[in-house]
């Protein structure tokens, strides 16, 4: 029997440990989120994309004209989760929703909570609630809640 210290050992973490750069457009979007502001990018046709898109899927132009949008918006669609799963960030009943922020022409995927399923429909007004600490990530918006 060999002593256990003779065995070759290597650490193994089951993960994809990639680091990503935010790039010039998304960097501005995330910097602004850190200051509780939501930006979008505006195309030459006047269409505003938020979260900031790097290019316009219709005209194919690259986008770098930043404009502020939100923090209020309306629900374009939602799916209601009564029993959140382990990986979900919100542990109470909540919705994933597409939210068209005021001043934007595209929608942002995010979460809505602090309400009941019956409170929501397409067109319902919601507003961003901010995380206590910001990390310049999309989760700096903690979730959306019904507009008072």
């Amino acid at each position: 029997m060999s002593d256990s210290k003779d065995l070759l050992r290597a650490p193994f973490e089951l993960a994809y440990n990639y680091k990503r750069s935010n790039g010039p457009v998304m960097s501005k979007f995330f910097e602004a989120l850190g200051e509780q502001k939501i930006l979008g990018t505006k195309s030459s046709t006047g269409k505003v994309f938020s979260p900031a898109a790097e290019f316009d899927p219709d005209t194919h132009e690259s986008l770098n004209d930043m404009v502020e949008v939100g923090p209020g918006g309306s629900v374009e669609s939602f799916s209601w989760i009564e029993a959140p799963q382990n990986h979900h960030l919100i542990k109470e009943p909540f919705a994933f929703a597409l939210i068209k922020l005021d001043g934007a022409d595209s929608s942002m995927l995010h979460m809505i909570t602090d309400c009941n399923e019956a409170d929501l429909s397409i067109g319902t007004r919601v507003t961003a609630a901010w995380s206590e600490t910001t990390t310049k990530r999309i989760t700096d918006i903690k979730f959306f809640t019904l507009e008072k």
Partner: protein
Amino acid sequence: MKRVAIVGYAQHPILKNAGALNEVELIMPVVHQLFNDLGISQKDIDFTCSGSCDYLQGAAFAFVEGLSAIQTNPPIKESHVEMDAAWAMYESMLKIQMGDAETALIYGFGKSSPGDLDAIISLQMDPYYISPLWPDRVSLAALQARVLLDQNVITSEQMLASVIEARANSKNNKNALITDLIDEADYLKNEMVSSPLNKLDCPPISDGSSAMIIASEEKAYEFTDHPIWIEGIDHRIESSNLGSRNLATSDTLQASMNQLNLKNIKFDVAELHTQFSHELPFLKSLLNLQDVPTNLSGGPLVGNVMMCAGLDAIGKTYESLKDNQFTHGLAHATSGPCLQHNMLVHLETQK
């Protein structure tokens, strides 16, 4: 375009939990069944292409292990797509068009049972704006379902009918995982997973594999007397920006239909890669298939092997044409949230 035909297709029985059977052990029987049926071996294959998802196995380059299921010595020409194997079939089709191969073996495999598929699929989304929110695949599909219901593109009665019919059609599919019949009362008893989708609106977690062989016109008749021709194939993708898509329609699918000139073709059968109950009436309407028998195999609602179910739609259409006096079949494969990326394949028996 060189004429290319499907000459064989085999599918592993779809399992709820393959347990200790690893991916290689899932692939091997279907590849060898094909070889035996056609009386050929790996030596007769010019190009081999597979489709799978490394995230399911949780390791980079996990797909390489799949090659242990086939003979790779002497060395073979081989490729892989991190996509449904329908796209491995597309790559193989291109390889034949370019004159680099006359025959191709395609296989796909997926074991979803060991992990948490909802969490895993979240990790495959846009890593900046979407993945950090951990949206599960059902909730994303439900966003499209709600838009379709709200705009009266489909009805909840059609969703119920999709579920009931899928189970009734499972009798045509010896490999189906879900075979018990249900009625409206059973359906309504199920709790919502992510409203408006309940458990039965969603496909079952499935393990399995499938394989297909395609060949140029010259080679096809060496392999079989009954090749089924790939008359047209086209795939297009919607914006990766989910919030800028119109979820009530699909411009890219419309473009594919025009490209393939499908308008005047009377299809005898169609198999659609519709994983959720609302997707079937939506695509039937978009693709003008209202009067066409669709998903006679039961489709993904009775067995949905990740990275295979698209290839299976093509394979099941092939089988329908081969086993019946049918002329035209349409197959559909999809990838990404809310039917983001779609492939249409027009299959035809010899005129």
